[in-house]
């Protein structure tokens, strides 16, 4: 789950101050494909109650482990629950929790990073030290510590992942703020009597926002993978919630008798992560060509 850590660090280094132009980003077909798939998932999550043919939690032991049929397009699981309905409702967990992690990390990381970069001096070195500690902590250890002490739940997993991820955003914002601080217009702003708060939260923020969005788009895939992974090993969302990682973890005991169970949840995860990576790649490519 930490496999992306290196990638993210590299990304943070490679991103400079940049601006978006949407028509350039969506020049490539595969970026458009990624965006379309994501929109489909968002649509599915929003209209889950309408789209799902059955109640995802409805246990129907008589119909357990059924193969695909018109009533149950993807079949039923070990408790007779409709797999398709569970997958559809699962998109809510995936998208909601990953967005929540991103919102928290950005809301904490970006102000801390801007403050650190803008203030400099002792504040900066203290904040950097704290950021370095959090960057060094593997997400599994943090998730384990939180789940082991506060209990394993979706909410605590969001807390654990936010604790790990905010530091990346703080670091990126700090680096970019340092670059912007050197620009001439910053001097002009100061000379014209702009207050520090106004400079940081209006002018600096406006300039680093595109880079932060780019990093966030690249991160969502990783975050979705981690949420499913932690739920799979029991440190995240708990059963019987229709979460994709839990569905996979339930399917393990039927690996000999009903391997079909593990097919669709995994495929769904691959699809959504791939889509986010395609979109993220598109945004990064746009950045590199400039």
């Amino acid at each position, binding site marked *: *789950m*930490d496999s992306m850590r*290196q990638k993210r660090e590299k990304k943070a280094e490679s991103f400079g101050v940049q601006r978006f132009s949407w028509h350039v980003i969506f020049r490539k077909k595969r970026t458009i494909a990624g965006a379309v798939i994501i929109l489909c998932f968002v649509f599915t999550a929003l209209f889950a109650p309408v789209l799902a043919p059955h109640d995802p939690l409805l246990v129907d032991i008589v119909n357990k482990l059924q193969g695909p049929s018109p009533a149950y397009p993807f079949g039923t699981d070990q408790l007779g629950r409709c797999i398709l309905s569970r997958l559809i409702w699962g998109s809510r967990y995936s998208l909601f929790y990953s967005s929540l992690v991103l919102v928290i990390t950005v809301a904490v990381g970006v102000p801390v990073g801007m403050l650190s970069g803008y203030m400099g001096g002792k504040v900066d070195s203290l904040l950097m030290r704290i950021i370095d500690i959090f960057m060094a902590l*593997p997400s599994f250890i943090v998730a*384990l510590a939180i789940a082991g002490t506060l209990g394993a739940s979706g909410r605590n997993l969001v807390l654990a992942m936010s604790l790990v991820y905010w530091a990346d955003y703080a670091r990126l914002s700090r680096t970019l703020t340092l670059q912007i601080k050197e620009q001439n217009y910053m001097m002009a702003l100061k000379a014209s009597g702009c207050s520090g708060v106004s400079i940081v939260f209006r002018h600096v923020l406006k300039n680093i926002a595109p880079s932060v969005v780019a990093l966030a788009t690249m991160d969502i895939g990783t975050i979705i993978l981690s949420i499913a992974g932690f739920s799979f090993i029991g*440190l995240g969302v708990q059963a019987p919630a229709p979460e994709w990682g839990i569905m996979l973890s339930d399917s*393990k005991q039927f690996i000999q008798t009903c391997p079909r169970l593990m097919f669709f949840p*995994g495929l769904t995860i691959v699809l959504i*992560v791939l889509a986010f990576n395609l979109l993220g790649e598109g945004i990064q490519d746009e950045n590199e060509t400039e």
Partner: protein
Amino acid sequence: MIRYVIKRIILMIPVMLAVTVLMFILSSLSAGDSARIIAEKTYNAPTQEQIEEIRHREGLDKPLFQQYFSWLGKVVQGDFGESYNTGRPALQELQSAFPVTLRLALKSLVLLLAISVPLGVFSAVYENSLFDKITEVFSFLSVSMPAFWLGLMLLYLFGVKLRMISVIGGTSGEVPLVAAFSMDIGFFGVVIRMIRVSLRDSLKQDYIRACKAKGIPVWKIIWKHGMKNSLIPVSTKIVSIVISLLCGSAVIESIFSLNGIGALALEAVTAKDTPVLQCFILILSAVVVLLNLLADISYSAIDRRIQLK
């Protein structure tokens, strides 16, 4: 250099202390009552007196900071307390589970390099060829593939269909190669791209053109002049990959039923086995901090232009 190392080691102390304080506060805040958990292991249905007696015997009725210091004193000596589950010392539990995880991590690392280095080199040398394109697709899929799903599918293929590995896991501590492969999946894309980009850039340098002009064989240029420079960023990333492999083994261990430290830690969470959990978190954090120091030192040792300060 030596002064730098000593300074870094001294700087480790406050970091580790912060981890212990956080760990201790979190454990005390947790919902489980340690005295009750111990009592339930000792007696069948503990009465309130028996719980209070254990609370007093274990020093759990003292103020929190006193508990912290007596706990810290023991931890420094390697005494993390006994596992609530087995009654054996927590450190011993971790020690007996560690070889499996280490074997898994080493096997994964070797496999990762054995696959990624050739792929990265060939796609850099034959840039924009069909091979390069296929490798790029593979890299892309690898970072989008959940390791736990790949692990399950491979377990099904090799365990259920081909019957080459045991589905329920063995006691021998043998680590199947497919387990190592599943653990690597997210890293393939990262390492291949890193090697590809870095080698491609160094092959465009002037000294490579000079080598070509001198008539040095192509493979020798790539190997001696190109690789040597492009391996620096890769070799420094190895440490952080090792950290991820050591700490992220729980998923793969739980799929392939290996009794490593990751599986042990997960068990400790479900059983509310605080000593084992604390031991795992503190030892692993210390290992991570030490390995990061090692990474910084090796960075300077490989490339002398990088000064440590």
